[in-house]
């Protein structure tokens, strides 16, 4: 797509198709197509530049690179990261991956089994803690999630951990009582460490369609989301909803999940993301 320098209807149709197929959404797709046309008419195509570069620039303007330090580290004391999202998005696996990443960067990492609800959720994270080689704060299934979070933050503080990653149960954003429960987890954490959570990362499945925007809106309204982890990008889904989420809510993608292993996490790179969308 975009090879060459001439805009015609075929080109516009192909561009629209690619963007829609990537879950960019109809409103955003129309906006991008209109913008590309406008820039072309305004003569923004540099000599020797292909149309493809014009499209890439339009998309690139929407996105932000991941932080140079990768996380918003606490000024002092442990950095508390809360990991939230809908059921099955990849939270637990992402917690394991984050733990591995920062352990390899010589950080002292603690993880917490904040999903006290789902069958074998604690066991799942126990296995990961063992594989990665980090300590796990847990209580048995059925206990209070906020209590686990509190214990985790207290332990991180007491042990001088650099980073504590708190896994939470999957929940659908339209379930008010579950969103209230998550808000309670945050308040309880704040009792122990007022500046916490320093990061609240929303885990989004890259296969999700436009409903991901609603997920981001409601989790942000409840919790204040500081960044996204876009998982399962090793599949064929492109995760284009991230562009609308950035545009409408200002939430940047921090990391992407590209597999089921503990090393399958990468910092977000907008250019690679855009190249995958445009094929």
């Amino acid at each position, binding site marked *: 797509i975009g090879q060459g320098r001439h805009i015609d209807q075929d080109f516009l149709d192909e561009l629209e198709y690619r963007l829609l197929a990537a879950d960019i959404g109809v409103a955003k797709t129309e906006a991008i197509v209109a913008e590309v046309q406008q820039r072309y008419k305004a003569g923004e195509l540099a000599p020797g530049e292909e149309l493809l570069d014009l499209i890439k620039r339009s998309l690139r303007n929407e996105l932000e690179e991941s932080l140079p330090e990768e996380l918003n580290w606490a000024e002092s004391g442990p950095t508390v990261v809360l990991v939230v999202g809908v059921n099955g998005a*990849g939270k637990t696996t992402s917690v394991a991956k984050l733990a591995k990443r920062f352990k390899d960067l010589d950080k002292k990492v603690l993880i917490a089994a904040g999903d006290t609800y789902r069958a074998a959720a604690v066991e799942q994270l126990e296995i990961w803690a063992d594989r990665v080689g980090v300590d796990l704060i847990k209580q048995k299934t059925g206990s209070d999630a906020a209590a686990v979070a509190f214990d985790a933050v207290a332990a991180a503080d007491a042990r001088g951990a650099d980073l504590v990653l708190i896994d939470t149960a999957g929940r659908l954003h339209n379930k008010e009582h579950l969103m209230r429960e998550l808000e309670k987890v945050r308040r309880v954490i704040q009792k122990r460490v007022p500046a916490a959570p320093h990061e609240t990362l929303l885990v989004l499945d890259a296969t999700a369609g436009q409903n991901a925007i609603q997920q981001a809106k409601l989790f942000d309204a409840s919790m204040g989301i500081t960044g996204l982890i876009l998982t399962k990008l090793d599949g064929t889904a492109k995760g284009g909803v991230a562009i609308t989420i950035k545009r409408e809510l200002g939430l940047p993608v921090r990391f992407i999940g590209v597999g089921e292993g503990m090393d399958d996490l990468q910092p977000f790179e907008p250019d690679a993301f855009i190249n995958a969308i445009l094929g």
Partner: protein
Amino acid sequence: SISERFSSIFDKLRYGGALTEDNIREGLREVRRALLEADVNVDVVKEFLDKCTAKAVGEDIVKGVEPGQQVVQIVHDQLIELMGESDTEIPFAKNGPTVILMAGLQGSGKTTTTAKLAMMLLGMGKRPMMVAADLQRPAAIEQLKILGEHVGVPVFHESGMTPPELCAKALKHAEGDNRDVILLDTAGRLHVDDQLMDEIADVSKRTKPTQTYLVVDSMTGQDAVNSAKAFNERLEIDGVIFTKLDGDTRGGAIVSLRHIVGKPIKFIGVGEKIEAVQPFQPDRYARRILG
């Protein structure tokens, strides 16, 4: 709603004229936007609207009914036709146990749905058994065993075998334990992971499932068609189960898969609890998406 978005375009038309291709196309542009926003696949939307246009062109405007409303009715009728008849039966095997293979992408809800079906089958007087054949996800076996305890259905698992070997052995075990329905819970996999697609094809070859169900997250966007096509090619899907419909997604993937895979949507998951499964009602869903 789609009905409201039509009125502004069509209420300029007077009675007695035919709907022209131009004003139909303009009205259907609104339908197109609505369907795409609802995550219906872009190719499916195109085919669907071409069909609606063909139906609508040349139809005389019925006096007393707004032209826009007539086009809405055509869209509604075509969607009902696309969604097909309700088909929520599990066709049990005539001889021997019924084998149900659960397949799908990571995190779609297979394990939870396996337990939900087991509970449903118990309620139908069956003697189901579940097989923990996900050897890959940490604590997957444990997860199914815990669910099995909640439902009161045995879970079969033996270590030291590959998933195809385990599933084949499970069938033998079921015979010995007089189980008449065997539910095979498998690991989530990507349709582009050749090795894992070969593996599940092997499970299917060895166990000859009576039913193979694709379990799909109802929030899935445009990619739903890609994975469904691939699974259908390797496995011959008999039905689709959409999960997490207790969420607020419009669930356009339901329309896409009904059209592309052409197999019935058997059940929907409507919650995390084991009781939260319902038979799929096509007309009720058509109303959800057009709403």
